[in-house]
């Protein structure tokens, strides 16, 4: 039996032909090594017992803050809500200027212009969810228009969803071509926006699917692969993130390119965030420990990180009234 990843390692040019047809893509994806669920769960659980204390914790808290895509994706989002989110992203703790800013804010595309104006040259990026987020159920033309609209408003990053229906019915090439089409919109726009591809792993369910979908996204030009929309449970679990990080690692071995990773949804506590950083550190290594290559999609996580940061500075716990509610 031939093993595509080994072939790829031996010959990086081999990847070019993979997406030539549905058949070649299917053969490639089904030739990827399987993922044993029990083993993957056990590895993630083992890494989550790492004990991160004192200086390591202080380092990790600031790193985690700097990696957050501060997110609001609700039907009741208003300009006021987005403004306060942007203020929080720039200065997470109004009393402590040493707290790093978050990596980005993540909003629906109609609020991108407002967020851009609020954030100015702060360095905080604006990510827009697009392509009929969260379900992805719309015609390709609508998804392309959605993306184009976000880019015109100045989005720095596009968080697109894949067509899970197409994936689960085995139309892998359709999934690939849709991602590639969105990527083309970005290229044509000339904005150099980053493309994050949301797999919605809670709907793909098996780790074999997660690994294959990760490869489809990377083959189609993803700058980041992302677990979830946050609208489906389970969202960003540790084992799913592990499997996706392994895909990033293997992609790098095959192509030399570094693809970023973004777990999103369900990461609420500092303890959770530490576990994800340990996973990155011990799966793909130090190179990925930067907001350029690792993001955490979250909203309530930031306040917990701030509370822990305050405790480390003062030696005592404050309380929920000592961080801002936005």
């Amino acid at each position, binding site marked *: *039996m031939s*093993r595509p*990843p*080994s072939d790829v*390692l031996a010959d990086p040019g081999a990847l070019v032909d993979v997406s030539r047809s549905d058949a070649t893509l299917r053969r490639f994806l089904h030739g990827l*090594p*399987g*993922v*044993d669920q*029990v*083993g*993957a769960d*056990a*590895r993630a659980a083992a890494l989550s*017992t*790492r*004990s*991160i*204390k*004192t*200086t*390591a*914790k202080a*380092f*990790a808290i600031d*790193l985690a803050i700097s990696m957050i895509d501060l997110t609001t994706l609700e039907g009741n989002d208003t300009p006021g809500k987005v403004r306060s989110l942007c203020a929080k992203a720039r200065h997470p703790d109004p009393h402590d200027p040493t707290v790093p800013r978050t990596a980005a804010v993540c909003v629906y595309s109609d609020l991108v212009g407002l967020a851009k104006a609020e954030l100015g040259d702060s360095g905080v990026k604006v990510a827009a969810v697009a392509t009929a987020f969260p379900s992805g159920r719309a015609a390709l033309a609508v998804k392309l228009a959605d993306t184009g609209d976000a880019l015109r408003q100045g989005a720095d990053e596009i968080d697109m969803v894949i067509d899970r229906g197409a994936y689960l019915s085995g139309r892998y090439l359709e999934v690939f071509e849709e991602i590639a089409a969105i990527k083309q919109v970005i290229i044509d726009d000339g904005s150099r926006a980053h493309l994050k591809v949301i797999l919605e792993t809670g709907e793909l369910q098996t780790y074999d699917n997660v690994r294959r979908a990760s490869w489809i996204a990377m083959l189609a030009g993803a700058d980041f692969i992302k677990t979830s929309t946050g609208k489906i449970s389970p969202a960003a679990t540790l084992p799913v993130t592990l499997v996706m990080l*392994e895909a990033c690692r293997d992609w790098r071995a095959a192509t030399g390119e570094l693809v970023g990773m973004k777990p999103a949804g369900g990461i609420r506590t500092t303890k959770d965030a530490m576990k994800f*950083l*340990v996973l990155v*550190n*011990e799966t793909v290594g*130090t*190179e*990925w*420990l*930067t907001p350029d290559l690792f993001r955490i999609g979250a909203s309530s996580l930031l306040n917990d990180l701030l509370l822990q940061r305050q405790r480390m500075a003062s030696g005592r716990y404050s309380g929920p009234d000592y961080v801002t509610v936005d």
Partner: protein
Amino acid sequence: MPPTPFEYAPAPESRAVVDIASSYGLFIDGEFVEGTGTTIKSINPATEEVLAEISVASDTDVDRAVKAARRAYTRVWSKTSGKERAKYLFRIARLVQERSRELAVLETLDNGKPIKESRDVDIPLVAAHFFYYAGWADKLEHAGFGPNPRPLGVAAQVIPWNFPLLMLAWKIAPALAAGNTVVLKPAETTSLTALLFADICRQAELPPGVVNIITGAGETGRALVEHPDVDKVAFTGSTEVGKAIARSVAGTDKKLTLELGGKAANIVFDDAPIDQTVEGIVAGIFFNQGHVCCAGSRLLVQESVADEVVDRLKRRLSTLRLGDPLDKNTDIGAINSLEQLERIRHLAGVGDDEGAERWTADCDLPAKGYWFAPTVFTGVSQAHRIAREEIFGPVLSVLTFRTPAEAIEKANNTPYGLSAGIWTDKGSRILKVANAMRAGVVWANTFNRFDPTSPFGGYKESGYGREGGRHGLASYLDVV
């Protein structure tokens, strides 16, 4: 800006949770008594610090202990109902859980294994074994051994240093559940948790003499298993000592179980789930510094994926954290003794001489204590000594095969037969290969997983008899 490395700050478990006495006597008839023999020092292999002095039980002490066990058997334990015996075992299991932190820290100090293993593997399994066999104590007539299976009497039990308290549990829990009394001798380098267990027996108000713990080295063990008033001998340890015991027991009425060495094959087929396979290889040979009789010390990998598997394995091994066993982030602890370290060094040297290619993980070894970095030998053939002899350390020998038939033949081509591992996504292949393995335990897509419900034991020079599960009861009952 290049990313800053994420360095984990030291996270040592506090050793203040355990009190270690400067010297220990022998636990006989429910009391700690002075031994009449000499003493030896028990040291922390990670620091070479002396932890305590322990007694070397003399022949007189051994006789005292066996007499106490006989008395307790005749007068008390053989007349105690299964329901009552179960109560004591449940109580012991709960006390192990309550004192788990203390036991884990002590085990790590005395043995050198990482705290995350003593905390998450050894001690929870100890409690699980006592819970499991507590459940059997009043149900022996339903165990498939006839209407009224009888205990054997006094069991002499000699255990090794690799899983000190866990091996104690494997021995004592079924023995007591079946209605026997015991005299147990832990290994001379790792006696401290057994002595703490003696305290737990007292706390559980176990009748005096039901459990006796005597310490010492090989001579004490020999005196114990050769004692004429012993009905049952259970030994876990080296094949060499096991053979000597088998010879000494031959011609007596003593029932014998032996759990000895191994040189397990961990077989990786080309369709294996590769990342989990790498984890399984690591768990197979680097768990507990490779001080595991059922360790997957021979990696048999299909030639078509051998390079990829070995590359991934090396990358993974480079992330292992070797150092202070009490640090919660340590993956690889200390080698248990200087003697064992020298044996590992010697056999690794033999591997070099035989022409195998040595690769060692790049990690700093602490200046004090006994350490051996994770090591992989590639280019190993069946004819090499490192493919045949048990190294009992963090050293993996990698061999290749071309077809399933060749894998099976090579896997079975060893004087041992304790365990084996199979890695493939194909269910039918798992079943076929597992059936062909001459090994007591076969793991599929996992390795070194233990459970009290599952029988464990070997073929050939790995010993005979089973421990664990319903089968484990048979070793302590007067049944065939």
